[in-house]
C-alpha cells in the first residue's frame, strides 16, 4: 500500500538528541579551600583570607580553614586580630594543635614570648605531626636568637615536602631580617616550584637585602616573566636599576650581618 510507504519505523538516521555535558564545577567547601590555597601560594593573602571564610560559610568543621584564616591575618600583619581569632577558634576546637601553633605565631609577632612559648609547647605535645607546628617553633627560635631554628625548619620540611613550607619558612626569616637564611629557604622553594612567581619574588627580595643586586635582578625578571603584572617586583627592579652609593650597600650588609 502506497500510503504506508513513507511510514518510518526504526530509522537509524534519527538518533536521540544528546544533551551537551556540562562540566560545572561544584563550588563546595573543597573548591573554596583549594582556591584559598592557590591564592596563598601566589602571595594574595587578602584573597586567600576571603576564600577561607567562604569555605567556613559552607562547612564550619574545616579546621584547616580556621587555621588558614589565622595564618593569613599573621601574613597581613594584623597580629592582635590573629590572636583574637585563634582564641575564638580554640574555644570551638579546644587543644587543636594547629590553632595553638597559629596563636603562638601571632603572640610571637606581638613579642609576647612567654605566651608564645607556652602555646608552642602545647601544640607540639598534641598528637600527630605537622610542618606548621615546627615552623612556628622555628620562628620562636629565630625571635629569641637561639640556634635551633634550622633544626625546626628542617623538621617542618621533613613533615611536609610541599614547596610552600620552605617558602613560608623564608618569609619567617625575612620578617626577622635574617636574610641569609631566608635566601636559602627561598632557593629551596624555587627549586621545588620553578613556575611559582611568588617564590621567585621572595628570593629576589632576600638577594636584594643581602646586596646581591645582579642575582636579585635575575630573580625579579623571572618573576615578571611568570607574572608580568607583579607590581612589587617591578618596583624592586626599578629601585635596583637606579644607581646606588656603595656605602649604603656596605651599611646594609653590616646591619644584616648574622
Amino acid at each position, binding site marked *: 500500500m502506497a500510503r504506508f510507504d513513507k511510514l518510518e519505523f526504526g530509522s537509524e538516521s534519527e538518533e536521540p538528541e544528546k544533551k551537551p555535558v556540562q562540566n560545572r564545577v561544584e563550588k563546595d567547601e573543597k573548591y573554596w579551600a583549594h582556591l584559598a590555597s592557590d591564592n596563598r601560594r601566589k602571595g594574595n593573602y587578602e584573597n586567600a*583570607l576571603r576564600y577561607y*571564610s567562604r569555605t*567556613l*560559610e559552607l*562547612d*564550619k*568543621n*574545616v*579546621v584547616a580553614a580556621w587555621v588558614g*584564616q*589565622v595564618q593569613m*591575618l599573621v601574613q597581613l*600583619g*594584623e*597580629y*592582635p*586580630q590573629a590572636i*583574637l*581569632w585563634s582564641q575564638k577558634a580554640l574555644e*570551638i*576546637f*579546644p*587543644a*587543636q594543635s594547629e590553632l595553638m601553633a597559629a596563636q603562638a605565631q601571632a603572640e610571637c*609577632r*606581638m*613579642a*609576647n*614570648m*612567654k605566651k608564645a612559648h607556652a602555646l608552642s609547647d602545647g601544640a607540639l605535645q598534641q*598528637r600527630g605531626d605537622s610542618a606548621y607546628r615546627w615552623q612556628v617553633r622555628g620562628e620562636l627560635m629565630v625571635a629569641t*636568637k637561639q640556634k635551633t631554628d634550622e633544626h625546626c625548619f628542617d623538621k617542618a620540611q621533613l613533615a611536609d615536602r610541599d614547596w610552600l613550607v620552605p617558602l613560608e619558612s623564608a618569609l619567617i626569616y625575612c620578617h626577622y*631580617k635574617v636574610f641569609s637564611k631566608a635566601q636559602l629557604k627561598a632557593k629551596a622553594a624555587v627549586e621545588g616550584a620553578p613556575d611559582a612567581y611568588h617564590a621567585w619574588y621572595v628570593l629576589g627580595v632576600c638577594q636584594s637585602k643581602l646586596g646581591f643586586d645582579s642575582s636579585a635582578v635575575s630573580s625579579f625578571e623571572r618573576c615578571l616573566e611568570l607574572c608580568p603584572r607583579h607590581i612589587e617586583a617591578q618596583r624592586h627592579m626599578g629601585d635596583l636599576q637606579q644607581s646606588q652609593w656603595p656605602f649604603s650597600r656596605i651599611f646594609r650588609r*653590616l*646591619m644584616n*650581618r*648574622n
Partner: protein
Amino acid sequence: MQCPSCQFENMPGSGNCARCGTSLTLAAATIDVHPPRAGKLVRTAPSLLGVRRAWNRFFPSVQSALASVWGGSENAIARWPTFLECIVPGLGQMRRGDRAQGWLFFGTFALLLSLGILLMGTTAGSLLLGLAFAAHVTALRDATAGSFALLGDRLKHALLVAIGLFMLLYLPAGWAITRVGTPFRLTQGLPPFNQGDVLWYSNVAKATAGDLVLYEVPSVSLAGNRNDGYPARIVVAGQRINRVVAGPGQVVQWNEGQLLVDGSASRYQPASARLLQMEDALTVPRGRFFILPDNLLPNAVAISPEQLLTVSLVAEERVLGPVFLRSYPLNHFTVIR
C-alpha cells in the same frame, strides 16, 4: 561520628568529642566565620602596632634581667631595690657578683657627676654632665642587655635605655634643680663679679628689698654730658646684677647725701652720690622695683635724675630672680646674701 578536629570516632548522637571536646554539632550552630580586621588607623599608621610590640619586647627583657640580678621573681621588679638599681649605676653589677665592674661604673659616674655639678654653667661642666649620663647609660645597658646578636638590636636597646633614663630620671631631676636655681655665666664683668664667673639665681623665689637680683635692664637711650662738657648719648641694655633698694609701695627719697627708704636710711647706698639727686620723694609703683644702677653707667657721664629713674625703676617681670650663689671659680665659691 568522626571529630573534625582530632578525627576520633565518637558515638552517634554525641554532642562533643570524647577525646578533645570539640563540638560535633557545629554545622547547626550560628557562628560568625569572618575574622575581625585591623582598623583604618592601624593600617595607615603601622608604627602604632610597632610601639606596642616594642613595649612587649623591651619591658619583659628588662624585667627578667633585673630579676636575675635581684635574684627574685619577675613580679619583684616593682619593688624599690629594682628602681634603686636603675638609679645607681654599678649596683646591678655588684649584686650580680661583679664587684670590680660595679665599683668602676659607680666611681666613674660619681666622679663625673660631682665635677659636672661643681662646674655647672661652664662648658666643662656641661661636658662632664654629658659624660656622667653616658656612663650611667652604659652601666644600665650592661645590666639589662641580655643576648642581642645583631648590631642593630644592640643599638636599638642602647637607644631605648638612653631615652628611658633621660625621660624618667634626668629630665625630672633637671626640672627639680631648676626649681632651686639656674646657673648662668657672666659674659662681662659686673663688679664685684668678674667675667666668666658662674652665678646661680632662683627663678622661683620672689625678689624683695635687699636682694641682689639678676634683671634685664630696659633698653633705653640716655642723653647726658661728659665731664669735659661735651654731650654724650648712652644706650643701656642687657642683663645686670644689682641690689633691690625698695619694693612696690615703698617711698624713696634723697636727703643730705643719703638715700632714705620709708623715712629711714637705706642699708644700701649708691656708690656715687651723683647718681640719685632726686628732689621729691618717689613712691615705687606697683609691679616695679627700685634697683640701684651702680654698675650701669660710666662715671664720666652725668645723666639727669629723671633719666636715671627710667633705668632704676625696673618692672617685676624683668627681674629674673635673686642671686644666691657663686659657684665658679671654685676658689671664690660664695653664698650670696
